[in-house]
């Protein structure tokens, strides 16, 4: 259990009010984000493993409305 926590870089959160279903996040981080039937992102897992940290940050930066946020685990 502790192992998994150490290998997590942070938690992804989507602000559902700001999110406008652009879908860039799912294109850039398909391992963790998929699109529902209406174009909005579903976070399959909020925890971002270290291997995907750079991709997660890129997805956060790419969101046209800054709805995706990565909160670092303490």
């Amino acid at each position, binding site marked *: 259990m502790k192992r998994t926590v150490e290998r997590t870089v942070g938690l992804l959160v989507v602000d559902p*009010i700001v999110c406008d279903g652009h879908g860039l996040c799912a294109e850039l981080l398909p391992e963790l984000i998929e699109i529902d039937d209406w174009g909005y992102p579903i976070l399959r897992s909020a925890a971002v493993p270290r291997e995907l940290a750079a991709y997660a940050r890129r997805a956060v930066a790419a969101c046209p409305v800054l709805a995706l946020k990565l909160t670092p685990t303490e």
Partner: protein
Amino acid sequence: MTFEARLLAGPAFGAGMEPYAAHRARLGQLPPPRPELIDTLVASGLLGRGGAGFPVGRKWQAVESRSQADARILVNGAEAEPLSAKDRALMHSRPHLVLDGALLAAGVLGAREIVLYVGARHIDARRSLQRAIAERGRLRVPVRIVLAPDAYVAGEESAAVHFVNAGDARPTVTPPRPFESGIDGSPTLVQNVESLVHVALIARGGDAWYRSLGRGETRGTALVTVSGAPYGGVREIELGTRVGEVAAVSGVAPGSAHAVLLGGYFGRWLTREQAWAVPLDPQALRAAGATFGAGVISFLPADQCGVAATATVLEYMAAQSAAQCGPCVFGLRSIADTTMALATNSAVVHDLDRLERWTGQINGRGACRHPDGAVAMLMSAMAAFGPDFASHARGRGCEVAAALRPAA
């Protein structure tokens, strides 16, 4: 079902408010607010009556630990759930009990003001509260009435705070929750009207008195709103009373109701076979796949189709979305349209599969729990009316005589 009434005790409800003098004569002076009241509330096990059922004592602890004499009390009397009438009944007929509870909260939590958030439609309730405030004269904490807009989600706690702060009764993203940052950014206690009435009585009677009634694990009494029955309306029950007992007392003849919606539009359906023996106790209801919610008990007459009832409720829930979050707006629209198609026997193949798929996609993806409630209600309907959903999907309607005509 007979016991000594607590919330409904005193002069008849609906005849007007109980005036201050009569209130004091009947119940005695309100005890001064003391920090020990929080421990008493925790010991009583009182659960919130707004629908979420969160322990009242713990909520007070959360606000108290953050309050620096700047807390706010928001009395949630929006009662936007159409199937519920208990809160407006209490505000109309026992406004002084409501004020008592609010004043106790304000004193114990170090609050600077009390906001009575009253549904704009509940005119009698508002008038009673206004008269009660006037009867009290000078109060240690300012009290003001804010009228809640006529929308389903206006009663949600973040929406209530948002409206008081900015005139916009739409839910906001949480965290932060109101107990952390609410009205004007201060720690705010958002508490249901009925919960505060219980507090006012517990402050006088003590936690042992509160716990002296009740049939199961969860103690005390609660108000329920019964509909779909000859003698419906607001009733006080001991927690743990069985649904069947309430049915009998409300005049529901055996066989005249085939299902019941418990909790509210956001609640759960149970068939008669499942429901009648279930105790109206939050824990027992959860175990039975239902919920206590806002104390709504709505019986579905035997000649009304469960699929149709579900479809009309979903239509309403879709129309009441705050229109902020895509999954809620499009998701509720999709499940409402599809369930309506099923109800009117105009469904297409795979519609049941699509419903299942969508219920999985919509949950937890809005800013508030509105879509979650609608989805949970639908899923309970699909479980309770499974055979009916299946035969509607084949275009053959169900055994229930009245099928829904396509909505005008």
